[in-house]
């Protein structure tokens, strides 16, 4: 302890430490709310971030948009505005109760016009459920459990973590070589090449290969927790998975996810929150939107 005291004092005396605790020279007492000058931030930025964990909020958003654009090139949107708006409200409800209530530009869901049973979550908060998936849900609580599972994939950044680090290295080295927000055509070409590779990595994982079993189980656990936090019944996710297991024909999500029976087992015993209720109005609006 005697040795740690001087060390701690040195650390606290350092500028960064003092500023963290509001004691720095620019602690802005009396200037509670400030605004960052966007034109100045990042001017001449030269340094390099190293890996996927350091992809910024805004970059995650743009990667997510491109992944979504690729998913929507493969699946047509379901043009049922009532169903989409209803799903959007359920998504925002479980997302608000999650560990990441807000992404860079919010959470969004699009239902897909396909009988295939499938769901995807792109980085940044873009969620997709096929009509075939939605039609297998019997209650709003089940739909909430499915959407919460997808929210968990985004919260844990499972999609971003599939990007090969080497793809990012070239992009990160370009950052800040110019003061302006815009890049030269050559720089854009280099960044676009890295971006294209990153998007391809995520799309391949989402659509073709699927996440590891551990990531699916983790998203089930977190999804059930988020649904419970929003006062939905977390057991509804188990009921939905058990029903899916009976329908398993090997396509869609069945080829990219662990077996439904195993997922139910992994979830274990779940209990609803003390505030959980099941009013008829909830089932009524589910039926009106999706039946």
């Amino acid at each position, binding site marked *: 302890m005697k040795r*740690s005291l001087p060390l*701690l004092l040195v650390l606290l005396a350092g500028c*960064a430490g003092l500023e963290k*605790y*509001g004691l720095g020279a620019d*602690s802005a007492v009396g200037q*509670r*709310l*400030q*605004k*960052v000058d*966007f034109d100045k*931030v*990042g*001017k001449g*930025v*030269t*340094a390099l*971030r190293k890996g996927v964990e*350091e992809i*910024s909020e*805004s*970059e995650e958003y*743009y990667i997510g*948009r*491109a992944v*979504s*654009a690729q998913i*929507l090139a493969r699946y047509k949107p379901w043009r049922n505005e009532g169903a989409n708006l209803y799903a*959007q*409200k359920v998504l*925002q*409800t479980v997302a*608000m109760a999650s*560990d*990441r*209530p*807000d*992404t*860079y530009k*919010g959470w*969004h*869901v699009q239902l897909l016009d396909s009988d295939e049973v499938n769901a995807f979550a792109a980085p940044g908060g*873009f969620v997709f459920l096929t009509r075939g998936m939605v039609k297998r849900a019997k209650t*709003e609580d089940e739909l909430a459990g499915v959407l919460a599972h997808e929210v968990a994939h985004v919260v844990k950044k499972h999609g971003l973590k599939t990007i090969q680090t080497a793809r990012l290295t070239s*992009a990160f080295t370009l*950052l*800040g070589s110019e003061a302006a*927000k*815009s890049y030269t055509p050559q720089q854009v*070409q280099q*960044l676009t090449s890295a*971006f*294209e590779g990153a998007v391809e990595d995520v799309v391949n994982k989402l659509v073709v290969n699927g996440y590891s079993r551990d990531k699916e189980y983790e998203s089930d656990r977190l999804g059930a927790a988020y649904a419970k936090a*929003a*006062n*939905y019944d977390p057991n509804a996710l188990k009921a939905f998975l058990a029903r899916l297991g009976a329908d398993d024909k090997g396509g869609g999500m069945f080829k990219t996810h662990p077996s439904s029976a195993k997922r139910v087992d992994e979830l274990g015993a779940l209990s609803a929150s003390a505030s959980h209720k099941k009013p008829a*109005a*909830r089932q009524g*609006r589910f039926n009106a939107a999706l039946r």
Partner: protein
Amino acid sequence: MKKTIAVLLAAAGLPAAALAATVTVLVTETAVRKKPQFFAPSAGTARLGQTFEAEGPDGGWYKVDGRLDGYIHASAVTAKKVKVGSDAVAGGGATAEEVTLAGKGFNAQVEKAYGAKNGSADFSAVNAMERREVSESAVLEFMRAGGLLPEGGAR
């Protein structure tokens, strides 16, 4: 060690449970809530790049005060010091937070170039998807109507 830190903070006039920090908002907008609960009513909206003097985080929430008093979710902000202007150059380092605030890295310019190379990518459908966002008050009403708000919630 915890005791030592507490003693040092006390000597500096700071309560151990209420460490102050300056947090910077990293999302386009996020609610400042009247209570540290996701369904609590909003006291206002914090926007990208705004900074607040804050205490915490405690249970995933920072307590902020100033023009907006309330609680802001820790996932929407960073407590790291964001370098501005020449400081960013001198340090030789660009953090993810600075990239977001500067609008650099993978941005709209890169997306445009990507779209030109990948004609089948359907960005118009993505734009339509993004336009579907529901206001927070509408989500809270949806929760209330569906029996999802606890007793006394959203008040």
